[in-house]
Structure formats: C-alpha cells, structure tokens
C-alpha cells in the first residue's frame, strides 16, 4: 500500500526523532506492562505464601487473625488449642497430614515457631516448594533451633551459635528464657516468604522454656528449672496455637472445616487459606489501583511525546503535503498518511516495549527476589495485555488525530501553494 510505504519512508527519513519517539512509547508500554507484571507477581507471591494446606485450625476467634498469625507471623492468638485436641484431629481418617504451630515467643523481634518434623516435610509455598536447609538440619531436640534466612542474615548467626529466646514479643531483657538457651543446628534457605523471618524450635523446646512460667511470668529466683533436670513429662506439650491440615481428598475439606468448628471438647475454628488470603488481598486492592493509575499516566506521557514529535514536523511538511495534493492525493489521504505514521510509531513502540519488559523482568528477577522477597515474573501474554496494548494503540491514534487533523486543515487551506 502506497500510503504505508510513504509513511514508513517518511519516518525513516526522520530516524532520530522517530527512534526517540518509539523509545519513549516503548518505555511507557514496558512500564505499564511491568507494573502489571509486578502487580500480578505481588498477588501471586502473596497467595503462594502457603500452598498445599487445605485448612488452618485454631481457637475460635477471627479468621483473619488466625491467618495472620499462622501464615504471616503477625498479631497474636488469644487462645490455645489443647494438644490432645490436636492429636485427635491429626489422627482423623480424612486427614493426610497436620503441622502444629506453637507461637508466642520471640528472639530479638523475630517470631519463634514451635513445630515438629511435619513442617519441614509437608509445608509448601509457591505451589510445590518446601523449606530446605541452606546449612545444617532441622531441630530434633528440645534445645535445638533452626533459623529462617532473614533471621540468620540480619543477626549474623551461624550454625552452632547459642541463642536465648524471649517470652512474648518484647525486647530482650527480663522476660528472657535465659534458663534454657538454644543451639542453632540449621539455617533455612531463602524462600521470600514469612518463613524467612522466624526461628524454629521443637514443640518440646517450647514446653521446656515455659516450665515454671505457668503464670506467664519468669519463675521466682530459686525456682528456675535447669534444662538438665527437665523430665520427659515436663517436655510433653500441653497446648499449641494452631495447626495446618491437609485432607486426603478435597471433598473432605468442607466437611472437616464444619466438623472442626463444631468440635465439642473445646471451641475451635478452621479457615480455608485461599479464601482468607483472597479476602485479605482485597483489602489492599487500592494499592493495585494506584499502580494501575500510575501505569496509565506513564503511557499518556509517552503518547504526548509522540504528539509533540509529529506536531513539530507539521510546518516543515506543508510543502510535502502540497506536492501530494498536486499529485491528486485528497485531504483524506493526507489525514490517513498521518494516522498511519502514528499507528506505526505506536505499534513499534508497543513491540519494543513488550521486548524491553520481558527482558527487564528476566534481568531483575533475582535481584527483586533477594532484595524485596517478591518473586517477580512475567506471566506470559494474556488477554488483558492485548487489551492494554489495544488501548495504547487506540490512544495513539486518537492523539495522532490532532496533527493529522492539522495536516488535513493545512492541506485544504494551502491547496497547491507551497508554503515555507
């Protein structure tokens, strides 16, 4: 098509301006799609903090609260679950596995999680990944601990170091469990989830540090129990905070949820993590919207750059338009010529932008995961991306109408007289 080839050659003739315009549109598009990838990645990272768990059970209370203190290690539980109840549920025929969590202590601001081997074996995040040890092994005895990678990195601990845990979430000091220090036997590999920000001990360890603390305060001087004197009976856990559960068949999940909520011996509740996570995420939806708005404005600025680039050439091209008029090209063809130019700029900008974004995401993936704990990835080309690009191209044509319309008017006004 003649107009297409004319538009192409004309753009090529002004290659520096053309290149700059294309690059500016490409950067806008890359940023728009990058923000979109970031948004979806953030949502994915968030919702894949926990995978493979069908139910989270704890003492009856707020479901959101239960989610926060089990998965995100935020907030505190108001009530405990009797260990006997936990044992009963863990042996339920419909249950595949359970992971007990005993929470409430901390080490220099990091939460302590008392759990058992099931955690290392069954816990999953980002669909199939499980906690793995960068060095050492899982704690097996009541005075052994493992660290999440952030804890180890922040506090500079190595395997073999001894740590003292603190009762509650306060600063180290009077509430220290200094009668029972822990030896670090393992450090977990980075997961970019809240796992990294916790200290892991055994359920027995959790019992051990609380012997004599039944009143919630340190034992009176003289009543401390030395770790060496602890009996097996004293180490037996009496209560946990919550437990994660996987049912053998998905069909059982809803029934188990109902049964746990109706459990007679003590008031419990169970939540489905995916549902609760969805509710939680919807509360931060405004942040997503803010990202989308920023992306939209970035594209607008890029397109205004195109408007300026085409508009500034209008006067010097009046001669060209008069020649085309003399050769029988009507004003509508001139209009079309300019619109095709806008279209070419927008299309090549979009193509380059997609390339920039995909390679940019690939290049930044590791850095972002390490620095921000966010697994950034390009989710592949989806329908909404096509819609975004369609909107960009349509907006480019709309903005391109301004110089095109000016060219059309010039053409009619100038006729065959060559201005400039």
């Amino acid at each position, binding site marked *: 098509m*003649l107009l297409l080839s*004319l538009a192409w*050659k*004309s753009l*090529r*003739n002004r290659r520096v301006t053309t290149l700059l315009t294309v690059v500016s549109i490409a950067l806008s598009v890359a940023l728009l799609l990058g923000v979109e990838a970031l948004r979806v990645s953030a949502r994915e990272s968030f919702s894949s903090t926990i995978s493979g768990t069908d139910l989270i059970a704890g003492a009856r209370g707020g479901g959101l609260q239960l989610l926060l203190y089990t998965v995100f290690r935020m907030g505190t539980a108001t009530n405990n679950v009797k260990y006997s109840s936990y044992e009963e549920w863990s042996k339920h025929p419909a249950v595949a596995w359970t992971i007990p969590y005993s929470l409430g202590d901390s080490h220099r601001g990091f939460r302590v999680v008392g759990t058992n081997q099931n955690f290392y074996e069954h816990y999953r995040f980002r669909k199939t990944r499980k906690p793995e040890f960068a060095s050492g092994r899982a704690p097996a005895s009541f005075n052994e601990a493992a660290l999440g990678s952030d804890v180890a990195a922040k506090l500079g601990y190595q395997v073999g170091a001894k740590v003292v845990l603190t009762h509650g979430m306060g600063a180290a000091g009077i509430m220290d469990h200094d009668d029972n220090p822990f030896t670090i036997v393992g450090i977990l590999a980075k997961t970019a989830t809240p796992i990294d920000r916790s200290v892991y001990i055994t359920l027995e360890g959790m019992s051990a540090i609380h012997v004599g603390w039944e009143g919630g305060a340190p034992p009176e001087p003289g009543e401390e129990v030395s770790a060496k004197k602890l009996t097996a009976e004293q180490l037996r856990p009496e209560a946990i905070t919550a437990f994660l559960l996987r049912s053998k068949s998905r069909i059982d999940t809803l029934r188990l949820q109902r049964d746990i909520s109706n459990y007679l011996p003590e008031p419990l509740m169970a939540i489905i993590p995916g549902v609760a996570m969805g509710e939680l995420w919807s509360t931060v939806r405004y942040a997503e919207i803010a990202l989308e708005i920023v992306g939209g404005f970035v594209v607008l600025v890029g397109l205004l750059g195109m408007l300026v680039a085409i508009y500034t050439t209008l006067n010097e091209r009046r*001669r*060209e338009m*008069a*020649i*085309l*008029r*003399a*050769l*029988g*090209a*009507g004003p*509508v063809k001139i209009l079309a010529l300019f619109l095709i130019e806008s279209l070419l700029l927008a299309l090549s900008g979009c193509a380059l932008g997609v390339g920039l974004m995909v390679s940019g995401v690939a290049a930044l993936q590791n850095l972002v995961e390490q620095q921000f704990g966010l697994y950034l990835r390009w989710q592949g080309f989806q329908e909404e991306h096509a819609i975004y690009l369609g909107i960009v191209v349509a907006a480019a044509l709309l903005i391109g109408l301004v110089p095109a319309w000016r060219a059309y008017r010039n053409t009619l006004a100038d*006729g*065959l*007289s*060559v201005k400039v």
Partner: protein
Amino acid sequence: MSSPTNPSSVLLAGVRFGYNSKLPDVIDLDRFELSAGESCFLYGPSGCGKTTLLGLIAGVLEARQGSVNVLGKDLRAMSSSKRDAFRGSNIGYIFQMFNLIPYLSVRDNILLPTRLHSARKAEGLEAIASTLGIAPLLDRGVLELSVGQQQRVAAARALIGAPPLVIADEPTSALDSAHRQRFLELLLAQCKSAGAALLFVSHDQSLAPLFEKRLSLPDLNRASRTEVA
C-alpha cells in the same frame, strides 16, 4: 461550449472566485481557453491571482460562479474527491521549486503519480528520464540533486503516464538563464511529443516567444485590476 471533435483542454467562462465572501473576488474571468495539445504562456506577475487560477483549473479550488471545464469535464459538477482523482490522473503539475518528496528516491518521486492513480502508466520512465538527462540519477536521493536537476525530475514526474494537460507554475524561476532555456526546450519538446497541452505561468516575459499562445493574466482577470493582493 466545447466541440467534441476539437475539445479544449481548458475552458473557463464567466468564472468568479473569492476566498471569503466578505472580501472582494480574486478571480473575475470572462473567458480563458487552452486547446488540446497547445502550449500556452500565461504572463502573471505576483499578486495577479495566478496561483488561484491554477488552483481552479487543477480542481483544488471551487469557482463560485461560471463554468470550469477541463479536458471536457465540468469540474464544478464533481465532488472534491472526484476532482482530486481527476487531477491526479490527468494533470501533471510542476511547482516553482521544491517539487520533490525529500525521503523518496528520484525514481520513486517520478513514479509517484502512477502509484496514486492507475490511469497513469509507469511505462516510458527510462525514455523520459534519458531525454531529460536524469537517467543516471534515478536511484539517487533527491537531496543530492542540484536545483536544475530537481526541476527536470519534477518535469519527468509531470510527464509520466502521458497526462493530457501539464501545468507549470514558474518552474524556471529558480534556474539561471542558461538552464532556463534548456529546461524549457526539453519541457516543450516532451509535451509536444506526448501530445499534452502545456499551461506555463511565469512573470518572465522573455520566455514567451517559445510558446504557440501567449496570454496575460492581468488583462484577463478583471479582479486583479482593482485589487492588488
């Protein structure tokens, strides 16, 4: 008005035109005629309405009154897009200067009318180019050419596809006198051999003797006598 056996290339009668209804008319012409295949020198100093007259004949402007008949067609009866197509198919046009699209090669510039309108055939490009002495330049960029070469390329473009009417608007004013004479001889010879009528407008009356017919626009245009733009 025009007899079918010997049709006029251009026949204007009682034409009045003004850019704005509040301002006086720029063109007020009783009669202007150019026969088929005829070469005509139209003397027109600046400000006598010659660009306007050429716009009327080329169908870019529309007369307010009278009849504008070009190559046997009544332009006033055509829609503006029909007139655009008619101009592109039937009229070769040469400007005073800067005739060429800067980002196209010489060859593409010359072939442009044939690509816009199927009625203009691309045949004879080599012959026209070699007669005008621009055959070696065909694949060059137009910005490398001298002004004289550019005007010859413009002439080739006006002549390609053998349009029955060629309009030249001061095509030689940018050339020095030696080139002017040579260019004009080439243009006249080419028009003659193609059987095209040539309407040549200039303020330089020294060129007039080369033409079969000589007219003066200020004499024809009643509007220019009262109003000097």
